């Protein structure tokens, strides 16, 4: 028996989750989040060159919400091979659940000075509809942030996976699902503020939202949740369960004939992925200050897939990098050349698909392997 190979492969699967370098990188990220960002935004005076502007803090917070979505997308697309073009729906549902609470936090300070949210007064409603009954309670709404996307994903996924809907057909159905939901949320009768959605938030847990300290708190919280989700995803992928997911991606029929009921594997990761997006949406809404059905548009969901592809599928860190890269580029482009942004996005996606199938992370790995091993130039 070749013991060296045996032990190395066993170690690979049972070794501690993160190596020394990865642990140090993670510690650095956490330190930046909890120390650097608050100090440079709140303590360093605004006229100093080291001051981190409020704009930068909220942009960072927003992009980290997107990064959570991209990470969730990587679990279902990168590792399980199921391309969802409807993840924006789960993001929006989490956002709406948070938005309902924020709307009730406005209290009587709205335009109409009523206990009801403004849009309900405008529609001449006398009391909140049934699905708003828990909206005064932070706990209830936080439960809904994960429960609504989770239950919807579970039910939809159960029927889709049980019927063996795969590949492009599944993608199209998810796209239709988010589009149909968008149309539903556009209607005033649905009770979510129609095409205006929710905005003009005043407080979260009784604390005013339009302050620097609140912005920093939300940004740091988003970052910490992103870190937790990253480590959790890492653990999932390192487990045997994670290897079954990758096996489903490579050859689902083989997995079935090996005795695994793939339905439950696909359904569990799909539901988890949706719930992660719901959390991202809930963190996004108070930082951006608005949620409307536009978040459910097909394009919003496709963008999540683009971040994942650009960063590098099935790498976990790649989609996070992709979310930062694409959205960073977007915020620069839309200021400098606003009319060319979509062309650039399209071109970038095509370029990545054609030349960088492993995305940015794949390119970096390739280059570092090349420089670490100069004799093996050109080797994959």
């Amino acid at each position, binding site marked *: *028996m*070749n013991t060296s*190979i*045996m032990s*190395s*492969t*066993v170690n*690979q*699967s*049972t070794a501690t989750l993160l190596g020394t370098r990865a642990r140090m990188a993670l510690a650095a990220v956490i330190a930046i989040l909890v120390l650097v960002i608050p100090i440079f935004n709140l303590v360093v005076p605004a006229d100093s060159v080291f001051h981190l502007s409020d704009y930068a803090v909220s942009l960072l917070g927003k992009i980290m919400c997107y990064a959570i979505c991209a990470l969730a997308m990587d679990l279902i697309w990168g590792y399980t091979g199921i391309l969802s073009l409807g993840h924006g729906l789960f993001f929006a549902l989490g956002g709406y659940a948070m938005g309902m609470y924020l709307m009730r936090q406005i209290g009587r300070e709205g335009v109409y000075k009523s206990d009801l949210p403004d849009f309900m007064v405008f529609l001449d409603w006398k009391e909140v509809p049934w699905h708003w009954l828990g909206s005064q309670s932070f706990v209830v709404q936080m439960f809904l942030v994960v429960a609504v996307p989770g239950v919807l994903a579970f039910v939809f996924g159960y029927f889709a996976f049980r019927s063996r809907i795969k590949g492009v057909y599944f993608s199209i159905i998810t796209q239709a699902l988010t589009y149909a939901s968008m149309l539903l949320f556009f209607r005033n009768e649905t009770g979510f503020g129609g095409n205006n959605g929710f905005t003009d938030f005043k407080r979260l847990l009784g604390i005013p939202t339009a302050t620097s300290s609140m912005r920093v708190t939300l940004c740091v919280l988003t970052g910490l949740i992103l870190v937790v989700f990253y480590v959790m995803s890492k653990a*999932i992928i390192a*487990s*045997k*369960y994670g*290897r*079954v997911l*990758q*096996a489903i*991606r*490579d*050859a689902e*029929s*083989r*997995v*079935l*004939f*090996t*005795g*695994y*009921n*793939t339905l*439950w*594997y696909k359904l*569990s990761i799909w539901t988890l992925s949706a719930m992660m997006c719901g959390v991202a949406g809930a963190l996004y809404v108070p930082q951006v200050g608005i949620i409307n059905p536009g978040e459910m548009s097909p394009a919003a969901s496709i963008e999540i897939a683009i971040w994942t592809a650009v960063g590098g599928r*099935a790498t976990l860190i790649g989609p996070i990098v992709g979310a930062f890269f694409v959205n960073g580029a977007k915020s620069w482009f839309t200021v400098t050349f606003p009319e060319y942004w979509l062309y650039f996005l399209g071109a970038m996606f095509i370029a990545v698909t054609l030349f960088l199938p492993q995305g940015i992370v794949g390119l970096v790995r390739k280059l570092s392997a090349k420089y670490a091993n100069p004799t093996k130039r050109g080797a994959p």
Partner: protein
Amino acid sequence: MTPDLLEEGTKRREAYLARQASALTVGESGGQAASFGRVVSSTGEVDTAHGGILYVDDITVSFDGFRALNKLTLNIAVGELRCIIGPNGAGKTTMMDVITGKTKPDSGRAFFGSNIDLLRLRESEIAGRGIGRKFQKPTVFEQLSVFENLELALKMDRRVRASLMHKLTSADSDRIAEMLKLIHLKDSGSRTAGDLSHGQKQWLEIGMLLMQDPKLLLLDEPVAGMTDEETERTAELFLSLEGTHSLVVVEHDMKFIGELVNGGQREKKKIVTVLHEGSVLAEGALADVQANERVVEVYLGR
């Protein structure tokens, strides 16, 4: 529930009760619908007390009017090594699809042992009861290592939670190491399965089947794309499994069939089955089958 569904259910229930009353549950045939009425074994262990491991009875499968299987009947004994040959489109792969639960037949019955009704079970359940299947095109998990491929095939709890908590024991690693040796991949444990040669992938897939410890192996063209030496080794491996496992080998390569039939436990007379147009054309010793006029006609198209 719509009224017609209710009505249909009532009818099915009545038919079932009538059958129970007459105590004549055997002899009826039917496809998916009829199998709902049958009693499934409670223990789940395959019962081979009658000496048979697989009973395929009167199975018909049509796709858009084309009969892929036409009243196919096939019985495999415990420990038997059965070779099945037949021209393209004879229904060999469809037969495996029916046995492994991928395709539900229009009519007929398929039993594993005398107690497990295969038409009632899903693919994963059938695999769990002890039927392993190798595909025509080698199907392995290309992005995982050879070791991980075998690890996933290890016989153990296949449920989600068990997989999340799973830790490889040293006994498991030993089993995988033995298997790596058996399939001549002992130095390739950490290689990515996608980088293996075609023949090695075939071996890996066979190894994955064996890790599941199946009672019946269905092997669809197992030596396609293998070198002569690899083919010979495969024949040796299958012959060593004969007796402890039951094997059904579908193959085009007559030389390989010859090796299987003439090697191993010679005292047992091995049967070769020829399929044609979805049913059995001839069955018997290899020499008899090869001399059969109808077989020659089908193969040479005279």
